[in-house]
C-alpha cells in the first residue's frame, strides 16, 4: 500500500520511560512518514533502543501515546504490535542457535505459510484498540488464542515456499535447514530481515543493523532497504554512524539524553551539524595520534598461529604472523567474528589446546607458549577485554575489589598470601580519582557504573601494572565521546612511555586515528598490512570484506 501524501505511519507522542533511576526516554516525540527511511541517531544510552522497544510493544511506556496510521494504540505485548504490522530487528539478534533458520523465522507466525488463510476477518477487538479502528490491509490477521495455536501445525513446507519467493525477490538466500549458530552473522541478519518480511511487517525497525556487517554487506543491506521503501514499507533505522545516516536515510532524528533534540531532512543537514546535536556541544570528530617517536624491541611476536574452530572444520585463526614493538600501536581491523577474539584468547591462554592449536608466541622476547595466563600477565601484560562486563569486571562486587582483580598477587597488595586492605583502599581511591571514575565510591558495585565509567575503571586497573604490552580490544565500545577521548589519550600515553600496544577494534575510525600500523583480519587470516599514512577507509573496507 503506497501511502497518500501527509499520512503518518508511526507516531510517538511524549513517550516517557524510566528504568530505576535512569530516565531512558523523557518525552520522546517522533513522526515517521510512510514509505520513507527514517534515521535515528544518538550516542550510546541516548534512548533510541528504548523508544523502539516501546514502539514494538516490548516495553510499556510510563506515559505517552503510540499512534499507528493515526490510531492510538495500547499494547500489552509485541503480539499487538506485530498484528499492526510492526517488525523489529533487534540490536542483539533474537535467534536461537540450535534451531534452523526456518524455525527461527516462523516462530510466532506458525501455520501462516499457507497462502491467504491469514487474511480473513478483521481485527475487531484488539486490546485497547478503539472500536471502529480501521483494519490494516495486508496485516497478519487476528490469530486464534495462543493456546489454541500451540497445537496447530508449524507449516514448514508452505513457509519454505513463501520464503523462497521472498528470498528470490530480495536476493536474500539462506540455507533454511542449517542451525542458526552455524551461519555467519551477516546471514543471521538476513534471517532477521526475512522474518519481518515473512511476518508481513510494513514498518521495519532496524536497531544498529550494520554493527556486524562489512562495508560491502552494509551496501547490500541498504540496497534492499531502499527497494522495500520503494514498495511502500516504512523503515526506521537506528545507528550512531553519521556516514550511514547521510548516505541512506530520507529523514533523520537526533536523540540525546532520552529526548529528541533535532529532526531534519537528510538532504538539508551535515555530519558536523548532526554530531554537534548528538553531543550537545561542538566536537572534534577525530583526535589523531601523532606518529610514534621511537620504537624498541619486540613486545609481542606471533608466529604461524593457528586456532581451531569449535566445530572442527575451519580454523578460526589460520597461520597468523605479526609483531608489535614497544612504543608502537598496531591496530587490528576487521569485522567482528573474523578471528580477533580467538587471537586474543590465544595470546592469554596459549597452553590450552582449544585456544591455540599451533604456532609460537613470545612476549618481551620470552616464549610464552607453555606459560599460564598468570605468568603471562606477570610479564607486564595489560588487557582491556572486548566484553568488559563479562571479561573485565566482577559486576556485583564493589569497585575496590574490582580494582584488585589480577593484582591480588602483586607485592603492593599481598602480604604472605593475605590481602592488605589498607594499601588496596588507598591505591584504589587514588586511581579512581586519577581516572575520573564516577561516582568515586569504592563500595559501589561495578555493575552499577555506566559503561564509560566501567571502562575507565578497567583502564585504571590495567595501567596500574605499568604494562610492557597493552592489549586493548574494542576499548571505546559503548563509551561516550568524552570518555573515548580520555581513553584514547591514555593509550597514546602508554605507547609514548614505551609500551607495545595491540589495538583490536571494529571501528575503522578509531583504528585509523590511533594506529602506527594496521593489520586487517578476514576469516582468520591477515588480509592486509598497512603502515601509517598508507591506508584509506575504502581500502581497509575492501580488505575487511575479503576483497
Amino acid at each position, binding site marked *: 500500500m503506497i501511502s497518500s501524501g501527509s499520512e503518518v505511519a508511526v507516531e510517538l507522542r511524549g513517550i516517557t520511560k524510566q528504568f*530505576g*533511576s535512569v530516565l531512558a526516554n523523557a518525552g520522546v516525540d517522533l513522526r515517521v512518514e510512510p514509505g520513507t527511511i527514517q534515521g535515528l541517531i544518538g550516542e550510546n544510552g541516548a534512548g533510541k533502543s528504548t523508544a523502539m522497544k516501546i514502539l514494538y510493544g516490548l516495553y510499556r511506556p510510563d506515559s505517552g501515546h503510540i499512534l499507528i496510521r493515526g490510531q492510538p494504540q495500547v499494547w500489552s505485548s509485541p503480539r499487538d504490535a506485530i498484528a499492526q504490522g510492526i517488525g523489529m530487528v533487534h540490536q542483539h539478534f533474537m535467534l536461537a542457535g540450535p534451531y534452523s533458520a526456518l524455525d527461527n523465522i516462523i516462530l510466532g507466525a506458525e501455520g501462516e505459510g499457507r497462502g491467504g488463510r491469514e487474511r480473513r476477518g478483521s481485527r475487531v477487538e484488539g486490546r485497547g484498540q478503539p472500536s471502529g479502528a480501521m483494519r490494516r490491509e495486508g496485516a497478519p490477521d487476528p490469530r486464534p488464542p495462543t493456546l489454541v495455536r500451540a497445537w496447530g501445525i508449524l507449516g514448514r513446507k508452505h513457509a519454505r515456499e513463501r520464503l523462497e519467493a521472498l528470498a528470490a525477490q530480495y536476493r536474500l538466500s539462506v540455507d533454511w535447514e542449517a542451525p542458526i549458530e552455524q551461519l555467519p552473522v551477516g546471514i543471521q541478519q538476513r534471517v532477521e530481515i526475512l522474518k519481518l518480511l515473512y511476518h508481513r511487517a510494513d514498518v521495519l525497525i532496524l536497531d544498529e543493523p550494520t554493527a556486524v556487517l562489512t562495508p560491502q554487506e552494509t551496501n547490500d543491506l541498504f540496497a534492499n532497504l531502499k527497494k522495500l521503501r520503494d514498495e511502500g514499507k516504512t523503515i526506521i533505522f537506528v545507528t550512531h554512524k553519521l556516514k550511514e545516516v547521510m548516505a541512506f536515510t530520507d529523514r533523520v532524528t537526533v536523540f540525546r539524553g532520552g529526548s529528541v533534540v533535532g529532526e531534519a531532512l537528510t538532504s538539508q543537514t551535515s555530519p558536523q551539524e548532526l554530531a554537534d546535536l548528538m553531543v550537545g556541544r561542538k566536537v572534534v570528530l577525530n583526535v589523531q595520534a601523532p606518529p610514534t617517536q621511537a620504537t624498541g624491541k619486540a613486545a609481542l611476536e606471533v608466529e604461524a598461529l593457528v586456532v581451531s574452530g569449535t566445530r572442527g572444520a575451519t580454523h578460526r585463526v589460520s597461520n597468523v604472523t605479526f609483531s608489535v614493538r614497544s612504543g608502537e600501536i598496531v591496530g587490528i581491523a576487521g569485522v567482528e567474528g573474523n578471528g580477533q577474539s580467538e587471537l586474543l584468547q590465544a595470546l*592469554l*591462554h596459549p597452553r590450552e589446546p582449544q585456544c591455540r592449536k599451533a604456532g609460537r608466541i613470545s612476549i618481551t622476547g620470552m616464549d610464552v607458549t607453555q606459560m*599460564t*595466563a*598468570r*605468568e*603471562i*600477565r*606477570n610479564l607486564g601484560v595489560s*588487557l582491556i*577485554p572486548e*566484553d568488559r562486563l*563479562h*571479561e*573485565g*569486571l*566482577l*559486576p*556485583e*562486587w*564493589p569497585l575496590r*575489589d574490582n580494582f*584488585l*582483580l*589480577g593484582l*591480588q*598477587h602483586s607485592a603492593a597488595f*599481598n602480604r604472605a*598470601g*593475605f*590481602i592488605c*586492605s589498607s594499601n588496596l583502599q588507598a591505591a584504589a581511591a587514588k586511581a579512581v580519582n586519577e581516572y575520573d571514575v564516577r*561516582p568515586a*565510591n569504592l*563500595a*559501589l*558495585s561495578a555493575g*552499577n557504573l555506566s559503561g564509560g565509567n566501567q571502562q575507565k575503571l578497567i583502564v585504571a586497573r590495567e595501567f596500574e601494572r605499568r604494562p610492557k604490552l597493552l592489549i586493548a580490544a574494542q576499548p571505546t565500545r559503548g563509551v561516550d565521546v568524552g570518555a573515548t577521548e580520555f581513553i584514547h589519550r591514555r593509550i597514546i600515553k602508554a605507547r609514548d612511555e614505551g609500551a607495545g600496544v595491540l589495538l583490536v577494534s571494529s571501528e575503522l575510525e578509531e583504528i585509523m586515528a590511533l594506529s602506527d600500523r594496521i593489520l586487517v583480519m578476514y576469516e582468520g587470516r591477515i588480509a592486509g598490512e598497512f603502515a601509517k599514512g598508507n591506508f584509506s577507509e575504502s581500502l581497509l573496507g575492501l580488505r575487511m570484506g575479503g576483497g
Partner: protein
Amino acid sequence: MRRLAQSFLAVAFGLALGLSATWIAGENPWEVLKILARGAFGSRENIGMTLFYTTPLIFTGLSVAVAFQAGLFNVGAEGQLNLGALAAAAIGALLPGLGWPMAPLLASLAALAAGTVWGAIPGWLRARRGSHEVIVTIMLNFVAVGLSTYVALYVLKNPESQNPETRPIGLAYMIPRLGVFGDAPVSAALPLALLVAAIVWVFLRRTALGYELRAVGQSEPAARAAGIDATKMRILAMAIAGGLAGLVGVAEVLGNAGKFKVEFSPQYGFIGIAVALLGRNEPIGIVAAALLFGALHQGTRELDFSTEHITSEVSLVFQGLIILAVSAEPVTNWFRSKPRINTDEL
C-alpha cells in the same frame, strides 16, 4: 539490618506454613510452636542436643557455601561426610594403639582427607570434563553410601553388634565432651566448628586465594582474563567443600558415637544447602542458620513426643517449607550476594 529482617521474615513465613500444616492435622499451632521451642531450648540437655545437631550443620553449611562462592553447587556433602566419618573410624579401628593427642589428630586428618578427595572428584570432573557437579555429586552420594556400607559390614565390622557399624575406636581417640549440657553429646567438635567457620571467613575474605576462588564464582571469564586458573579454583573449592563436610566425621565419630554407623546422618548434607542459603554463604550467617535448623530438628522430636498427630517427618516438612520461603525472591538476591545499591541513595 534490613537483610536480617528479611531472612527473619522468610523463616517466620516458612514456619507459619509448617504450623498451618500441623493445624490441619488437628494440633493447636501455638502449642506446637511452644513445644518446638521447649524441645529445642527447654532444658540443658535439650539445648545440648540442639547444639549437637548444630555442629555438623555448620560444617555442611560451610561446605556448600565455599563451593557456592566458586560458583558450584555441592549437593554431595552427604556422601563426603559419610566417607569422612568412615575414614576417622577406620583409623581408629586400624590403629588402636595410638595415644592422645596423636590419635584424634590423625583421625581428624583422615576425615578431612577423605572428604577432600570425595569433593575433589566432582570438582575435577566439572573443571576438566564439564560434567555438571549437581548430578555428579548426587550420584556420588549413592556411591559413597554403598562403599561405606560395604566397609562397615565386611571390612571393619563391629563383631559386638548387629548394627551395620564399624568396630569402636579406642578411648584415646575420643575428643572431650562439653560437660555443661548434661547427657547431650556436645563435644569439642562444636568449638572446632566455630573455629573452622572463622578460618573459612578469613580465607574467603582476607586471602588472595580466597579472592581468586570467589572471583571465579562471580565471573569465570573475568577471572580467567585476569590470569586466575579457573579450573584449579573449581577443583580447589570442591576439595575444600568436601574436606569441610568430611569434618562432620570428627563430630560424629570422635565426639559422639566412637564408630561409624551406616546412615548416622539425618541428611546433614542436604540440610547444609538450606543452612548455606539461609546464612547467605557467609560463615557468621551459617552458624546462625545451623543453629536454627539444629533447633528445628531437635524440637520436632519433642513434637513427636508431646502431640498426638505429629511424627518425626514433620521436621522435613518444616525444613522444606523454610527453604522454599527463604529461596524465593527477594531473599535470593542476597544468596547470590548481590548488593543492590541504588545509585540514587549515594
